[in-house]
């Protein structure tokens, strides 16, 4: 955005906000929390409709809601997936705080809700937000038996996967680094296991996911494309529960229960793969895989405790480890490749009054990747690491009528170790420069107001100011210096090397056309102070995260979107069309010809080139919300380009540029015992760079590349199906009181999920490469393009239980 344009926008923003928050009326607030009656777990994303004012609110992550209303008598309807809908009559003559307890009734409501759940899309001013409930995702087809919320997210319009089976995802043309993935408000840098085929989210530990792919509200920042919020289960405040599952490649177990009954709860969830143990008998001693092993495990721990009427604390943590090992004792050779995330957060929820709530969170998040190898006396070790220490304080105020104001501050201290290398031969260390840790401070403050101007017009307007400082200790390597000129610049500890900052205006406007339709406009400007770059065509754990430096400027981007939303057949079907345009600058790529070893002898940012990007598209989404048959169809028509003048003189397609992307997701509940699911996806093939010609040099066959991402892979399509068989919810027991058999709810429950991935066994492209056959001197040499596919038809079965 041009400076003058931005200034004009800010003046406009301030002139809108100031009068909005300056007046108040003698309205009263209706606030409260919604929780599970049996367990005491607070319930986020519960929809509350109040009549006659026709306002709709949704509980936040703490189960908290509020209304600001004129005095009167109201009917409050509370609806949530898996719970009985409740109606309450409220007489509001003063500020009121109520607690609502919902009764679990999965069986009844499973037929009446959908897999994805959104705030009323017609009423809500925000664009491109979709919530997903884990309960329903579990009935969809599961890849290798692993239920995965990220796989479901990739079925939404505007979202595409990096590759077959891959966890990384692209949102509306942004890179995988431009998605802010939060687990209980803590950022996760690499949300995948097994080189990206499985996500770090244990399905039993996850309560819900919320994807914001349109313009994000001002309380989010640090990434340009999207926010994915994962909430983990809080735990049962009344009784101990155990649930788990045994799948094709892994098993999992979750225990949750009360801490001082009624006051708090805990949840512990663990998962481990057994690929290594299963494969052992099938690997012969002569196989190159003999001696190799791979596994991953992860652990989630969460606890919450109510300190009084106004205070509640939450503790949340995650640890996941992937490890590949190879050992050949006879050759004295071994390799070890571990990587994983660790994070922990402590959140304090305090209610100052019915109209002012605070959430303060302190967290740490860490991602490490290592590679170690030894052969005889020769050893090599390679490491990279990211460590963030963060603090967030957010206030939510309902002091002013028709306003929901959020304001707060964020702070992160980043420590990046992009790469370090050590090599030793016996007692002789190789001459490698000391690894440099890159440190920086990132902070932001924001204010966001969701304001209902009239019955038809509602805005969500916000302003975020973010600041960033890259600090020492740091050594800058200089190139092309004059003789006698220093070749390095050293910065002392905590000395500022470079400071950046800027305003990030955000606005979303909704205008109701009729009762069941609306149009919306959104605009968001974002700064992103971290980058991800790769020396591989595929996304791998070895990809390097890098903070902004004096050379690598912060990524900046804006998104403009316009949408039309309509509900038909009494809200049973939702239809939406959203168009967007996104502009990005200060994107990074490695310079042509850079090799991995160059990272260890220079500043990485000296090896980069910088460019811009743009993407635009239109998304169609139709979803059936209720009935035995539910699901959605999403279609995206889009184009994504990159322009790096130091790589190519003309713009080129991004590697994940897809013109067409179609997803059909459906679920059919035949009866109480059986639910069936099906997913079909079709997408234009990704782009890749293949050579345009070959030549000979010293009898070696070499290739010449002249155009980036100019070859397109064949299109991708796949059908998955599933069937879930539930056991009976009740059992008959003899009642001495009634002298007869009666039906009671079973404590122990289980279900079987049968899935078939890629039903018609289509060979989808994972990558293409050129293969030569024959010999040049014999004149039978041929080059051909080979397509490598990963996953054929894969049936799987998972047994789940809980008691």
């Amino acid at each position, binding site marked *: 955005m041009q400076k003058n344009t931005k200034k004009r926008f800010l003046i406009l923003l301030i002139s809108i906000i100031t009068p909005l928050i300056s007046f108040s009326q003698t309205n009263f607030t209706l606030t409260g929390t919604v929780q599970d009656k049996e367990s005491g777990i607070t319930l986020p994303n519960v929809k509350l409709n109040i009549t006659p004012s026709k306002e709709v609110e949704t509980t936040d992550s703490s189960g908290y809601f509020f209304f600001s209303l004129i005095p009167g008598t109201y009917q409050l309807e509370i609806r949530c997936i898996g719970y009985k809908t409740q109606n309450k009559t409220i007489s509001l003559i003063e500020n009121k705080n109520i607690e609502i307890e919902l009764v679990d009734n999965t069986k009844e409501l499973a037929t009446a809700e959908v897999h994805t759940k959104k705030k009323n899309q017609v009423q809500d001013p925000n664009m491109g937000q979709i919530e997903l409930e884990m309960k329903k995702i579990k009935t969809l087809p599961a890849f290798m038996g692993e239920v995965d919320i990220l796989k479901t997210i990739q079925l939404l319009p505007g979202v595409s996967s990096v590759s077959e089976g891959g966890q990384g995802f692209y949102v509306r043309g942004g890179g995988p680094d431009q998605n802010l993935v939060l687990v209980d408000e803590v950022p996760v840098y690499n949300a995948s296991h097994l080189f990206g085929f499985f996500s770090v989210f244990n399905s039993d530990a996850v309560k819900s996911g919320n994807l914001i792919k349109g313009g994000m509200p001002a309380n989010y920042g640090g990434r340009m494309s999207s926010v994915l919020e994962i909430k983990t289960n809080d735990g049962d405040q009344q009784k101990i529960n155990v649930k788990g599952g045994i799948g094709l490649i892994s098993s999992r177990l979750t225990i949750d229960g009360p801490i001082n009954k009624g006051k708090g709860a805990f949840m512990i969830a663990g998962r481990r793969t057994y690929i290594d143990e299963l494969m052992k008998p099938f690997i012969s001693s002569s196989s*190159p*895989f003999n001696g190799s092993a791979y596994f991953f495990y992860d652990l989630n721990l969460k606890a919450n405790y109510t300190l009084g009427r106004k205070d509640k604390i939450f503790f949340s943590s995650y640890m996941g480890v992937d490890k590949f090992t*190879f050992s*050949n004792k*006879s*050759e004295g*050779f071994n*390799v070890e490749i571990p990587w994983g995330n660790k994070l922990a957060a402590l959140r304090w929820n305090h209610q100052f009054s019915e109209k002012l709530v605070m959430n303060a969170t302190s967290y740490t998040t860490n991602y490490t990747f290592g590679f170690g*190898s030894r052969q005889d006396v*020769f050893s090599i070790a390679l490491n990279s690491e990211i460590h963030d220490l963060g603090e967030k304080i957010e206030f939510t105020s309902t002091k002013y009528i028709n306003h929901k104001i959020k304001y707060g501050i964020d702070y992160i201290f980043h420590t990046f170790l992009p790469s370090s*290398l050590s*090599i030793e*031969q016996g007692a*002789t260390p*190789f*001459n490698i420069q000391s690894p440099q840790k890159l440190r920086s401070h990132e902070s932001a403050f924001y204010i966001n107001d969701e304001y209902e101007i009239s019955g038809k017009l509602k805005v969500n307007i916000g302003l975020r100011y973010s600041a960033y400082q890259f600090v020492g200790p740091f050594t800058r390597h200089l190139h092309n210096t004059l003789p006698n000129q220093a070749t390095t610049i050293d910065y002392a500890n905590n000395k500022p090397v470079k400071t950046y900052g800027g305003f990030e205006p955000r606005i979303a406007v909704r205008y109701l056309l009729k009762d069941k339709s609306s149009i919306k406009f959104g605009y968001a400007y974002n700064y992103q102070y971290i980058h991800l770059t790769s020396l*591989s*065509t*595929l996304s*791998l754990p070895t990809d390097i995260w890098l903070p902004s430096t004096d050379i690598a400027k912060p990524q900046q981007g804006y998104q403009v979107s316009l949408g039309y939303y309509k509900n038909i057949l009494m809200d049973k079907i939702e239809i939406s069309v959203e168009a967007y345009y996104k502009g990005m600058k200060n994107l990074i790529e490695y310079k*042509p*010809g850079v*090799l991995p070893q160059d990272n260890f*002898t220079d500043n990485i940012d000296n090896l980069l080139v910088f460019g811009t990007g743009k993407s635009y598209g239109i998304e169609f989404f139709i979803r059936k919300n209720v009935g035995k048959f539910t699901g959605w169809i999403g279609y995206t028509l889009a184009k994504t380009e990159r322009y790096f003048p130091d790589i190519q003189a003309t713009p080129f397609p991004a590697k994940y540029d897809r013109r067409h992307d179609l997803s059909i997701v459906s679920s059919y509940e035949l009866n109480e015992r059986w639910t069936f699911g099906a997913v079909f996806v079709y997408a234009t093939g990704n782009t*890749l760079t*293949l*050579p*345009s*010609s*070959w*030549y*000979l*040099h010293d*009898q*070696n066959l*070499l290739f*010449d*590349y*002249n*155009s*980036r991402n100019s070859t*397109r892979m*064949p299109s991708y399509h796949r059908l998955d199906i599933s069937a879930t068989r539930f056991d009976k919810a009740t059992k008959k027991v003899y009642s001495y009181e009634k002298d007869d058999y009666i039906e009671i709810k079973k404590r122990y429950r289980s279900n079987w999920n049968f899935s078939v991935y890629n039903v018609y066994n289509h*060979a989808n492209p*994972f990558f*293409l*490469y*050129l293969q030569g056959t*024959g010999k040049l*001197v*014999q*004149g039978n*040499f*041929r*080059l051909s*393009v*080979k*397509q*490598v596919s990963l996953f*054929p038809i894969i049936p799987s079965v998972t047994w789940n239980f809980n008691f």
Partner: protein
Amino acid sequence: MKKFHYLYFILLSAITLISACQKDVSVKLPNYDEKLVVDGKIETGLPPIIFLSTTKNIFSENTQDAIFKDFISDALILISDGTTKDTLETICSDEIPKQFQDIGYALFGIPQSLMSKYHICAYSTLNQAFFGQVGKSYSIEIQYKGKKYNASTSIVEPTYLDSVYWKPEKKNKDYGFAYARLTDPIDKYNAYLWEVLRSNLDKTGKPIDLKFHKTGNPVFNDQFINGISFEFFYENPRTWRDTSIPEQFRGMYKREDTVIVKFSSLDQSTFNFLQKKYVQVNNGTNPFTIPLNIPTNISGGALGYFGGFSPTYYTLICK
């Protein structure tokens, strides 16, 4: 250096495993413009040798005729050492007398039986002023189809190996890799090329190898070893497909092999070319790397390289 032999093997095996699910596909490749390719070198004590050819379409016809008739013999190449100039002459495969065809094989790299069939020409000179000398720079100008292409290179001071030796494997004392110890000079940039020739005689009384061969990754520089003394080892590039050798010992030298090691010092530009060339040769177009165009020192839009080499020679008897 040959330290990651097994790791490469694992990665290649992994790629091979997933490559089992593969098929030919038809895709549109980028447009193709024919470019001149230069394959030239000059090394200490020897005349310059330059081959010229052109790039080819990925799906072009690759018959023997199509490939070998594509070498260029009608270009004009001028060479200069900064003070003197000369025009290079052509030495063509079909002009090599039969008794010198072994030497011709070392020069042209094609079977002796094909030498007379094709007119493959090397550009060179017998002017001893242009036999490579340490410390000198050489430049060439190629004139072909109305265009001019220029390149220059230099021959640096050689660095000598401290020692070369052979170490038998623990499992079988009849096989082992070739080892060497090097002390890298600390005060200057150094880059190296390792080549080998087995001079054992075969049953017909000829040496097993008629020319020097390069190993899988034959170049390294002092990026990580500047100023230190260290040991390294290399494989035998000629026995990877020798089925007479047990599989686990392929790529090793046999006891009693006599190996001539040619250890050349290179300037930075020549190293950059060779390093990236062998990265591409080893990686091909696999997706675990990013597409890599090999740098060139030929101006005017040609590909390839004209490089200077400063070799030292060692005899290694495997026992």
